[in-house]
């Protein structure tokens, strides 16, 4: 019996101790008419060997194409040590550290993670993770609305330059809490969200402004101006940031004259494989003033009975298991194992290592964009400094080009027209530090071929 250790003797002895004849008797409080007759359709169990053969075949099927998609998930090198340690049983198979004394490993990791995230974002405090970047933004929006005592209405300015999936996720999650998400357009020449675009949202007060940096197009926003503008209107500022980019870019805590109030984003670039989109790791940081509105676990430092330093979950009164319906959020299980990976990743790379990774991605993506733009009809979509991603205008339908490239095992980018019809046909491309010059040349060649075919057709 896979995973069930009971011998026949055990079973007999245990039933005897309980005083029943057979295991099924233990289910006698379930009304008979409800007892499931069977599990028709569930296949028979397989041995580990058979499942391995099946899964190996399936994993092979998905191949390992050359990936030039970014769009919120980045193919970075992950030091081998990261997952070899993260998957140690003591991290992998532990629960949320409710019993602090038996969980110092996890708790100290959480505290270190929080320390690293505050260092990266320039804010005071960090929680110990949310599900992913998009749901973290949703929580940030809810948090900002709760936290803003000066502005009573629940309007939040949401630039269209924020990742479209993030905007959708925010919409799903906050829709029933009376929050109005006001879309702010971007400048179609630069791809930037200008103050003027924000002003177009009207004169009504708003609780918060979301600022993506870099934005979905890879374009760098004028974060200082936007932050000061929002703060002048008593709104809070929520930065949506890429943690690797933060190695080079001004941290939210430094934006404008006062700094952003909240920063959130996707931790995937900190040591998580692409893995079809998850598990990743949402992070959420804020100023000290907002800590009681912060959702999610927080590890804090304390002392034990002998005065030794230790760590424990703290401010639990914010959380559902204490506060129930009055909690800051319903979040319970979060992304602890990914936090462990991210913490190890950051400690191995350090600030300088992350900086080099960021610079390499930036340079590679620039090289890729330049190289593709040598092809007739391909040109930069926006005229503004960009980081990590580049939006390109195509002379042919993006979907066709992408499927042509895919047939050559090149994943050519994200089809911008799908989310921004006015930009069609356009592509969002990205080349992380893992893409070599040869990879970029291969892409360029395949793109030239694909466009030639499209042209001929």
């Amino acid at each position: 019996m896979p995973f069930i250790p009971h011998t026949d003797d055990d079973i007999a002895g245990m039933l005897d101790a309980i005083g029943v004849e057979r295991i099924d008797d233990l289910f006698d409080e379930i009304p008979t008419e409800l007892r499931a007759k069977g599990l028709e359709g569930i296949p028979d169990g397989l041995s580990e060997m058979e499942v391995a053969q099946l899964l190996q075949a399936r994993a092979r099927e998905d191949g390992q194409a050359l990936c030039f998609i970014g769009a919120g998930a980045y193919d970075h090198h992950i030091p081998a040590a990261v997952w070899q340690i993260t998957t140690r049983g003591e991290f992998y198979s532990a629960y949320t550290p409710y019993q602090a004394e038996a969980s110092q490993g996890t708790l100290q990791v959480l505290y270190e993670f929080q320390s690293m995230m505050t260092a990266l974002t320039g804010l005071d405090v960090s929680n110990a993770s949310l599900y992913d970047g998009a749901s973290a933004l949703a929580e940030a929006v809810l948090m900002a609305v709760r936290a803003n005592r000066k502005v009573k209405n629940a309007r939040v300015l949401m630039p269209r330059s924020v990742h479209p999936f993030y905007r959708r996720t925010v919409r799903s999650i906050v829709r029933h809490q009376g929050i109005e998400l006001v879309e702010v357009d971007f400048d179609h020449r630069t791809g930037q969200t200008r103050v003027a675009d924000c002003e177009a949202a009207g004169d009504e007060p708003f609780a918060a402004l979301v600022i993506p940096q870099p934005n979905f197009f890879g374009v760098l926003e004028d974060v200082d101006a936007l932050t000061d503008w929002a703060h002048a209107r008593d709104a809070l500022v929520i930065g949506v940031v890429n943690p690797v980019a933060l190695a080079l870019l001004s941290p939210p805590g430094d934006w404008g004259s006062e700094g952003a109030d909240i920063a959130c984003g996707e931790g995937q670039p900190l040591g998580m494989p692409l893995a079809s989109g998850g598990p990743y790791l949402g992070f959420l940081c804020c100023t000290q003033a907002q800590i009681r509105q912060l959702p999610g676990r927080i590890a804090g430092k304390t002392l034990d009975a002998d005065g030794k330093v230790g760590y424990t979950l703290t401010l639990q009164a914010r959380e559902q298991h204490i506060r129930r319906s009055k909690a800051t959020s319903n979040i319970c299980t979060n992304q602890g194992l990914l936090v462990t990976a991210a913490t190890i990743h950051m400690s191995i790379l350090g600030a300088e290592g992350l900086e080099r990774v960021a610079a390499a991605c930036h340079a590679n993506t620039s090289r890729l964009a330049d190289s593709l733009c040598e092809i007739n009809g391909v040109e930069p979509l926006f005229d503004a400094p960009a980081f990590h991603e580049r939006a390109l205008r195509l002379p042919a339908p993006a979907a066709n080009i992408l499927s042509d490239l895919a047939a050559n095992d090149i994943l050519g980018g994200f089809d911008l027209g799908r989310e921004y019809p006015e930009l069609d046909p356009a592509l969002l491309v990205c080349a992380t530090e893992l893409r070599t010059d040869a990879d970029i040349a291969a892409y360029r060649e395949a793109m030239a071929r694909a466009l030639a075919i499209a042209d001929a057709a």
Partner: protein
Amino acid sequence: MLIHEQSRPGRRATAQAPLTTADSSDLPTALRRKQRAALPEVSELQAVRHYTRLSQQNFSIDTNFYPLGSCTMKYNPRACNSLASLPGFLARHPAAPESHSQGIMACLYELQDMLKIVTGMHAVSLAPAAGAQGELAGVMMIRAYHDARGDHERREILVPDAAHGTNPASAIMAGFKVREAPTGSNGDVDIAALRDAVGPQTAGIMLTNPSTVGVFDRNIQAIAETVHEAGGLLYYDGANLNAILGKVRPGDMGFDVIHMNLHKTFSTPHGGGGPGAGPVGVSKRLEPYLPIPLVEQDGDSYRWLDEDDRPETIGRMTAFGGNMGILLRAYIYARMLGAEGMRRVSEFATLNANYLLKRLQEAGFQAAYPERRASHEFIITLKQEAKTYGVNAMDFAKRLLDFGYHAPTTYFPLLVPECLLIEPTETEPKEALDGFVEAMTQIRKEAEETPEKVKGAPYTLPLRRLDDVRAARQLDVAWKPASQPASQPTSQGA
């Protein structure tokens, strides 16, 4: 010692960063970081040693019996980890085209299907990232259902007082009011009180059955009838599915919507606090509202369903469709179990729980519901011990750690005083249960003879009992450099 405290400026003994720093001088100075982030600067060996040693300070399934009620801490098969980590799966970008995704989509599709069968629901979405997000998706679907029918007054969700905290919190996030439904003294929902509580304002009720008090609510059909007749829907909190897998199906009990914690019943790892996965299953009438993406079979191949295919969907729960790596692990586990194995899960989880309950009762401990069968878990109350010896549930819990056993869940559910919610799971051998009974018996003896000893526990762990109050009062939630370090300019692309 924190990793930060091992940091030395200029130390970076790893082979990790690119060997040269690429040019990034085109980034506008105003938007650049002025000072390096205070991340630790350590060697790879230091990092490896630090985190390896930290890991050793955790209790875990792989090292300890972990009878944490409501959490289903069972063996996480290692195959699930290695197979979900095959390069083909790890390398797939979430926005990869369907042509490069058929392998994983086949797994997801079959998982949807298996979850439909075991729960008796009509359709399943794998999107929610954990149980609580599944709950949110579930109650949002209830709301979408009523809204679609123009039934806008149904704004109240009933939640038993014993329910998990996420239940009321999720209902609130979906814009509902929460009303408590009391638990009767036998552990079942108080049906009379429920009848009084339902009405035209009732959007639904959130239940788990077996409930968090560890008994199967025998009136479930009456409850379903009561709520349905009042026009409400029934939500099933699937955290306790391990108790009934293959034995009774929420769909057959009358539930309209359910979430499942794959990190419980389907044995994906808890990871020190996640990641999990909280798929939702629904009856036919709720299907249009399922969160996206979904996987559909289309002839020989699979395709994603998104907003365009499902215009009434409550939408997207995360950017990229959920915790795929966890879904894969659950799929692998399910395939190893098969139908027979699934049935055995609930059978042996229940056998272990009832045996352990019986042995503890024989040892003199008081069950919260002595007349009832245990499901996969049960509650004992230490109120007697607390009164007589001044040794409370938390003291027992801490002392258990000294015996190498992780503590059961304490003080939840709140309605039972000084309670321990104990869930042994099916993967523990009888010897582990017997050992636990021995430890509990020993601790009671200590409570009687030397109560201070129990109250001072633990003794054998790296740390003694931690001061939670101090943690909250003298908040310190992030290390900060002693003095902001001398400004280290970041490289300017040189």
